[in-house]
């Protein structure tokens, strides 16, 4: 149970767990999470949590993540990355010349810092109170409660149990108790993911383009009911481009994208999804799509 906090972070009155001042270096790998590590680093530099020399702590934090290989689980990595990213953000903000202008990014950084440190302070509070718990438990363990069976003369007086179940009901209870509990799962029922078929979109767009000859992407996707449908339209266009039935034109960067039908009377029949998975990324992609 190696706790790594220095004296200033522990309630320090438990007197039970070995808690050496040199424990920091030795037990580096016992950090349980990013808050744990960050607090450890801050206390190592004897810094006030609200005036941390960010760049130094950030470097060590990143170095720690770099050192660790294997043994990560996804959960841990994401927590660590979140904290590391926030720290890096803050460090970058410090390194840049600080102008007078408070633009939105600056504000966001300030918020990120405050939030990170607020959460860190909160974590430290629970850590301190955990030390109080340990002390109280150690003290309470020195007293033993009386917990002995009833004297025989009284045991016989217990009111007779009301017993209403038979062997079959009893077996059913046993089966339920002995069946492993299903591991908790996150319900995704509330996410109404509407699936949009790129092939359907392609056929739809091809039909419209044949009629119009030329149209902007804005125009083509104007009927979309959600972002996912716009994305599908865009992917469908890429598929059509691959089939060599459309041409793109964009006059200015971030300007409107115009699509021209070049396929004449060709019928559109795309391969089923998944047949060419990954092809999309390798497609030449010069245009600056908006």
């Amino acid at each position, binding site marked *: 149970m190696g706790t790594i906090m220095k004296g200033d972070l522990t309630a320090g009155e438990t007197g039970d767990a070995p808690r050496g001042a040199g424990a920091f270096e030795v037990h580096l790998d016992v950090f349980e999470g990013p808050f744990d590590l960050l607090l450890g680093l801050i206390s190592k530099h004897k810094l006030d949590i609200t005036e941390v020399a960010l760049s130094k702590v950030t470097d060590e934090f990143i170095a720690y993540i770099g050192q660790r290989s294997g043994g990560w689980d996804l959960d841990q990595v994401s927590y660590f990355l979140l904290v590391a990213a926030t720290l890096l953000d803050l460090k970058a903000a410090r390194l840049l010349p600080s102008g007078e202008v408070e633009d939105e990014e600056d504000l966001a950084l300030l918020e990120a810092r405050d939030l990170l440190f607020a959460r860190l302070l909160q974590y430290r509070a629970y850590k301190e*109170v*955990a030390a109080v718990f340990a002390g109280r438990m150690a003290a309470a363990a020195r007293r033993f409660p009386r917990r002995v069976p009833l004297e025989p003369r009284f045991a016989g007086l217990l009111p007779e149990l009301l017993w209403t179940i038979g062997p079959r009901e009893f077996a059913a209870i046993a089966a339920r108790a002995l069946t492993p509990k299903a591991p908790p799962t996150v*319900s995704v029922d509330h996410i109404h993911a509407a699936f949009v078929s790129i092939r359907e979109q392609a056929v739809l767009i091809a039909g419209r383009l044949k009629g119009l000859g030329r149209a902007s992407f804005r125009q083509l996707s104007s009927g979309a009911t959600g972002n996912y449908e716009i994305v599908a339209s865009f992917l469908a266009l890429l598929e059509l481009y691959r089939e060599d039935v459309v041409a793109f034109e964009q006059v200015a960067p971030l300007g409107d994208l115009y699509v021209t039908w070049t396929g004449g009377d060709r019928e559109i029949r795309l391969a089923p999804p998944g047949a060419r998975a990954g092809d999309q990324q390798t497609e030449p992609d010069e245009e600056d799509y908006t």
Partner: protein
Amino acid sequence: MTRDFTAEQPQDSPAGDEDGPGLRACLEAILLVADEPVPEVLIAQVLERPRHEVADGLRALAREYADDGRGFDLREIAGGWRFYTREDCAPLVERFVRDGQEVRLTQAALETLAVVAYRQPVSRARVSAVRGVNCDGVIRTLVLRGLVEDSGTDPETGAILYRTTGYFLERLAMASLDELPDLAPFLPENIEDIEDNERTRA
């Protein structure tokens, strides 16, 4: 050694007439057979005495044991009264009791327990957010140890909520959760903001 019989109650009360045992003896006898904390109300019912009389009697008895340096002690823990061995007899009792040793909790378990204690009822996700690390396994261990229990589900998210148990109070020698040390001095002022933020993320 006390020879002080002032603890004997007046004659007119039901459980302590001239012939019968006095209040002190009754309390001692009942607590001797109890194997879990006995609430004052229950004792008052059994003895058919007003609750405040019972409460006073129990406190007087506890004081008497302490003053006389007895090997046992009467304490109000987890919502009731119970006999405990005196603290400075611990080394001897430990030698005598075979399986009495409680397993010590890890740092992770203690921290998780602390978050549950102050935030209860609380979901695993919330606890994980506060600690910055996944706490599912630790909470399962705390449930298995009887320190924490399921207390229903969150009506909004459907997540299982957890709270501390009576055994938790026993392990910390507390009469009730009101005795938890105040967390405020340790916490940043804008704690509300954190809470809100967590809620959206958790």
